[in-house]
């Protein structure tokens, strides 16, 4: 039983390679349909994928900014921080109070820097960058660090002025640079400081005392914040959070429109791709089926001879099946080669417009396997139909065709 099956496999293999010209044609026909389909999918996957990656990697896309100023207390901010869809939130003090004049020994200029509240997990400070803690540590934006000619570990001098009880008062605050935020994260001059330092700056300007820094003044009252810095967990949470804020009467600004555009483009491109892919797959299955069918017809005499010699009908079905598997695997391999060449060319051509490591045409390993699976499935189906047809013919038929 098994012997006959093995022999049919061997005979089908020899026939396939004996008629290599025709086999090459089958393989080419398959690759001609499958290759472009893979390139199309690679383009769709690469373009949409890199747009989504860009959205995902750019923290600005996840930022939700309140418009104007309001009064928020600490408990409200803490409640926000506990939400699952919020990755990071810190309160902001009045923007007029959140500035600091900074100088260093190395640069002649005194910079007036925007002070940004920060904390552990700040999306603008990539992993590896220091986190400003307490009242003495700060992180500088890349441009500010450059202008002050300082780097991590250096000391700088912050100073601020208030008008208190009718006279001008200036205090100095020695600070340590614990990190420099990359220009990509924050392009302007800025200083990242802890919420506590932000509060201290505001208190000083309001004439309140800051005992920790030995700044005198009136005792502070209940604290309210005018705004917050908030980042959603992912770009997909932005729209929901925005809706929630709007519902509770807080007007916010987000990049939800951009995200929506990309998502819509993804859906549109996917729909277009699947339309093309379905037509392509249907055409591919038909062409494969037709060629296998024709092949069985052409080989009817040979198959009849095999049956005359005594091969069982069930084994004969394997003959076209084995050959179609060869065609499927070889055609797929050729299609992969076509795809790789096309993707290489496309990516090379568009490389100047792209950031490093970005690819316009890209497939994951599992996409290759899906392509192989689909090809094998279509081939086996077509071959089975053809094979069953071959088996159904009475053995004597086809024997005397010349």
């Amino acid at each position, binding site marked *: 039983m098994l*012997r006959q099956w093995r022999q049919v496999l061997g005979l089908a293999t020899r*026939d396939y390679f004996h008629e290599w010209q025709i086999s090459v044609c089958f393989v080419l026909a398959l690759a001609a349909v499958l290759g472009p389909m893979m390139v199309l999918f690679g383009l769709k996957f690469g373009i949409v994928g890199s747009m989504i990656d860009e959205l995902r990697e750019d923290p600005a896309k996840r930022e939700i900014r309140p418009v104007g100023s309001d009064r928020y207390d600490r408990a409200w901010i803490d409640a926000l921080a506990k939400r699952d869809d919020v990755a990071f939130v810190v309160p902001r003090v009045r923007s007029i109070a959140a500035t600091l004049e900074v100088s260093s020994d190395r640069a002649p200029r005194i910079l007036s820097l925007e002070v940004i509240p920060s904390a552990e997990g700040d999306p603008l400070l990539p992993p590896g960058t220091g986190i400003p803690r307490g009242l003495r540590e700060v992180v500088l934006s890349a441009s500010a660090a450059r202008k002050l000619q300082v780097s991590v570990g250096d000391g700088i001098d912050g100073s601020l002025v208030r008008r208190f009880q009718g006279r001008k008062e200036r205090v100095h605050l020695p600070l340590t640079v614990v990190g420099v935020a990359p220009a990509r994260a924050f392009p302007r001059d800025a200083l990242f400081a802890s919420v506590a330092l932000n509060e201290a700056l505001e208190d000083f300007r309001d004439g309140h005392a800051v005992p920790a820094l030995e700044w005198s003044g009136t005792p502070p009252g209940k604290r309210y914040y005018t705004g917050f810095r908030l980042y959603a967990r992912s770009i997909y949470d932005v729209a929901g959070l925005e809706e929630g804020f709007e519902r509770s009467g807080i007007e916010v600004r987000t990049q939800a429109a951009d995200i929506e555009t990309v998502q819509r483009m993804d859906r549109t491109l996917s729909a277009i791709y699947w339309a093309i892919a379905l037509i392509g797959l249907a055409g591919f299955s038909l062409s494969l089926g037709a060629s296998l069918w024709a092949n069985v017809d052409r080989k009817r*005499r040979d198959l009849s001879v095999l049956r*005359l*010699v*005594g091969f069982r009908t069930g084994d004969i079905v394997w003959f076209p099946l084995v050959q179609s598997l060869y065609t499927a695997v070889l055609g797929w391999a050729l299609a992969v080669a076509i795809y790789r060449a096309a993707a290489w060319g496309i990516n090379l051509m568009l490389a100047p417009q792209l950031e490093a490591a970005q690819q316009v045409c890209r497939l994951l390993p599992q996409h290759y396997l899906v392509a192989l699976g689909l090809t094998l499935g279509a081939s086996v189906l077509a071959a089975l139909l053809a094979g069953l047809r071959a088996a159904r013919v009475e053995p*004597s038929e086809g024997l005397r065709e010349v």
Partner: protein
Amino acid sequence: MVKEQAQQAAQSPAERPIYHLKDVVKTRASEGYSFRLRVPSLRITPGEKIALIGESGCGKSTLLDMLAFVLQPSSCDTFEFEAEGRSHDIAKAWKRRRQNRLAALRRRHLGYVMQTGGLLPYLSVRDNINLSRRILGMKEDGTVEALAKELGLHRHLHKLPGELSTGERQRVAIGRALAHRPAIVIADEPTASVDPFAAEKIMALFMQMVEERNITVIVASHAWRHIKQLGLRRLAHHTRRSKDGRMAETVVSG
């Protein structure tokens, strides 16, 4: 697994007929024409050499295909085949669609020489001859080489059929039909596509080889002249046509 027995059965004469047919009919109809082959009674005993002579289209191939179990009779009273002391009811096997059983009988007991070779174009001469042995799992024992030598093919063993002349291809087909030591060899116009001079030589060689091996042989040919001196029993048959030529019936008996 039973090749030794097959050999013995082929070599020992038996009283029982190897084929026993009674009222076997095959009807074919196409485009308003119908053709009927009727076999009221046919008995072929082991070792017999049968000739079926007639013009093409008289139903020779139809009968041979039925005897080779590749064509299903339209109706039959009795169709028995005797091999290795066992009787096989072919009529019943067809009725029950036991195609694999028929294939097993073909593979073990039958050799078939077709009019135009029927060789597999992708196999060498050696592999074509060996095909009937390999399917039975028979070991390489020099049979193929000996046959090739006898048939004058020993120089061509590695060639593909495409590189051979028509006569050489027919000799390869004869080799394949004999290689697995079958009990019966059926040959359908084995030399019709070969020039007359070569045809006579091939036919004589073929008959000599089956005789040496004590194989029952059934040969169809359109020319009695070639084979009458070879000592075959000729099956009687006659063909009748209806007046409008739309119906033909051939009756074979023997």
